[in-house]
C-alpha cells in the first residue's frame, strides 16, 4: 500500500481533520503516531483507531503545542519519521479591539510556532528518510476574515514557514501547506455554537465556498495524503487549497 513502511506523526489527531488523516494513513499501510494535548484523549483515540483498523501500527503521545519544551520532548520520543503533519491548531475569534495579548500569543504559539519547533527538532530524522512535512493551513492564510486577525496572521505565517523551509530544505525534504476551507469539525462547531442563529452561521461558512457546503474531515484528510504521498515527488513549497474553491472565486 501507498504508505507501507512509513511512519507518520499527525499533531492534533485526537479529533477533527487530524484524526481523519491518521485513520487514512493507517488504512493505507502507514504506522501512525497520534498526538493530542491530553493523555486521556490520546489513549482513547489510539484505542478507537487500533480497534477500527485491527492494527497495532498506531501509538500516541501527548504534548501541549503551546509549550516549546513539550514540542521538543515530543520530537525526542520519535525514533524515525517519514512524514510530519502539523495539524494541531486553535481558532479563537475576537474583534481587533477585543483581542487580548494572551489570545494573540496562544494562537501564534499553537498554529505557527509549534509547527516550526517540531519541523526544526525533527529535521535530522526527516532528512534521514528524505521525508515530507505537511502543514495544515487554512483558506484564512489567503483570505482575510473579520474577527480573525490573529488566526489569519498565524495561518499566513504558516504559509511563509512552508515556503521558507521548502526553499532551504530542498531537495532532501519536501514541505507543503494544505489549506482546508470550512470543515465540519469540533473547532467549526464551537464557532457556530456562539452564533445567535446556528443554521445561518453554518450557511454563511458554506457560502464562502464554490461548492456551497462545508467539507467533511475525510475529504480534507484525502488532500493531506495526496500532498504527503510518496508519489507526489515534484510537489514542494506548494500551497494547496482544499477549500471548495473559496479562494478561487466568489459567489455573488
Amino acid at each position: 500500500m501507498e504508505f507501507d513502511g512509513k511512519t507518520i506523526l499527525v499533531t492534533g489527531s485526537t479529533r477533527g481533520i487530524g484524526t481523519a488523516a491518521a485513520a487514512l494513513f493507517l488504512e493505507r499501510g502507514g504506522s501512525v503516531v497520534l498526538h493530542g494535548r491530553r493523555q486521556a484523549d490520546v489513549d482513547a483515540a489510539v484505542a478507537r483507531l487500533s480497534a477500527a483498523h485491527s492494527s497495532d501500527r498506531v501509538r500516541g503521545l501527548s504534548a501541549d503545542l503551546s509549550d516549546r519544551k513539550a514540542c521538543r520532548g515530543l520530537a525526542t520520543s520519535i525514533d524515525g519519521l517519514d512524514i510530519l503533519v502539523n495539524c494541531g491548531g486553535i481558532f479563537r475569534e475576537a474583534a481587533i479591539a477585543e483581542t487580548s495579548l494572551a489570545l494573540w500569543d496562544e494562537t501564534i504559539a499553537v498554529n505557527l510556532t509549534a509547527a516550526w519547533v517540531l519541523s526544526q527538532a525533527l529535521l535530522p530524522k526527516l532528512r534521514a528518510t528524505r521525508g515530507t512535512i505537511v502543514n495544515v493551513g487554512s483558506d484564512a492564510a489567503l483570505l482575510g476574515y473579520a474577527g480573525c486577525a490573529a488566526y489569519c496572521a498565524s495561518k499566513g505565517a504558516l504559509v511563509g514557514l512552508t515556503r521558507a523551509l521548502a526553499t532551504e530544505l530542498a531537495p532532501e525534504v519536501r514541505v507543503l501547506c494544505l489549506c482546508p476551507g470550512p470543515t465540519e469539525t469540533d473547532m467549526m462547531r464551537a464557532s457556530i455554537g456562539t452564533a445567535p442563529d446556528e443554521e445561518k452561521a453554518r450557511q454563511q461558512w458554506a457560502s464562502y465556498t464554490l461548492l456551497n457546503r462545508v467539507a467533511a474531515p475525510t475529504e480534507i484528510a484525502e488532500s493531506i495524503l495526496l500532498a504527503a504521498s510518496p508519489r507526489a515527488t515534484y510537489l514542494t513549497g506548494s500551497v494547496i487549497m482544499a477549500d471548495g474553491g473559496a479562494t478561487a472565486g466568489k459567489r455573488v
Partner: protein
Amino acid sequence: MAEVTFDYGGRVALVTGAGRGLGFAIAKALFKAGATVAVNDRTAESCAAAIARLGGGPGLIAAPADLATGNGPANAVAQATAGGRLDFLINNAAVNVERPVTATDDAHWDLHLNVILRASFLTAQAALPYLRQSRGCIVNIASELGLHAIANNVAYISAKHGLVAMTKAMAIELAPTGIRANALCPGTMDTELMQECARDSGDPASYYAAFNRYHPIGRLATPDEIAAFVLCLLSSAAGYMTGAAVTIDGGSTAGRQ
C-alpha cells in the same frame, strides 16, 4: 519624471522604526508633505537623532518604545496621540537577521515574530479609536518575502507572510469603519543597514552585484522611492485600495530571468 506631491497638512502620522532606513525616509516624506510625524524608534536617543536630522520643530513627536515588548506598541501610539489625533499608522519597524534553520533559536524566532507581526497588530489595536475618528489609514510594510521565500531567513519570512495575511483580515474587519489597511511589499533597498552588510561581507561590490541581479530591474530601490509610494497609498488616489499586498520589488516576485 514628474514628482508627485501631497499635502498632508493637519494630519498626524506614526511611523515605527523611523530612526533610519525606510522608516526615516517615510517620516521625512510625510513631514515634508506637512504632516505632524511621530517618530518611533527603540530609544529616546535614536528618536531625537532622527528628529534632529529632520530639522526639528513642533511637527515632530518623539515616540520611543521597544516594539518587541507587549506594551511597547501601545506606548508608541500613546505618545503619538498625545494631541488626540491620528490619521496614518505606518508599521515599518522590523528585524532582519539571516540565519539557517538549524541556527534559528527561540530568541531569534521571537524577536522577528514580535517586532514584525505582533507589534503591528498591537499598534493598530491601540490606534483604532483614533483611526476610526479620522477614517484613517494603516500601511503595513511587509516585504517581497511576505509573498515568496529565499533560504536562510525562516523567521523573517514567516513573520512577513503573517503580516500580509493579518493586513487582509484587518482590511475586511475595518472596511465598514472607513479605515483602509494595505500591505506594501518592497524588494531590497539601499539603506544604511544594506551598506553595513555590504561592508561586513568584505566584498561590497559583489555583494551589491548579487542583489542587483536578484531584482530584474537591475538595481536596488532607494528608500525615498518606496516612501513616495507609501504617501500615495495614504492619499485619496488610493481611496479604493484596501486589503492589498502591493509589490514594489523591481520585478523579483514577477518571474525568473
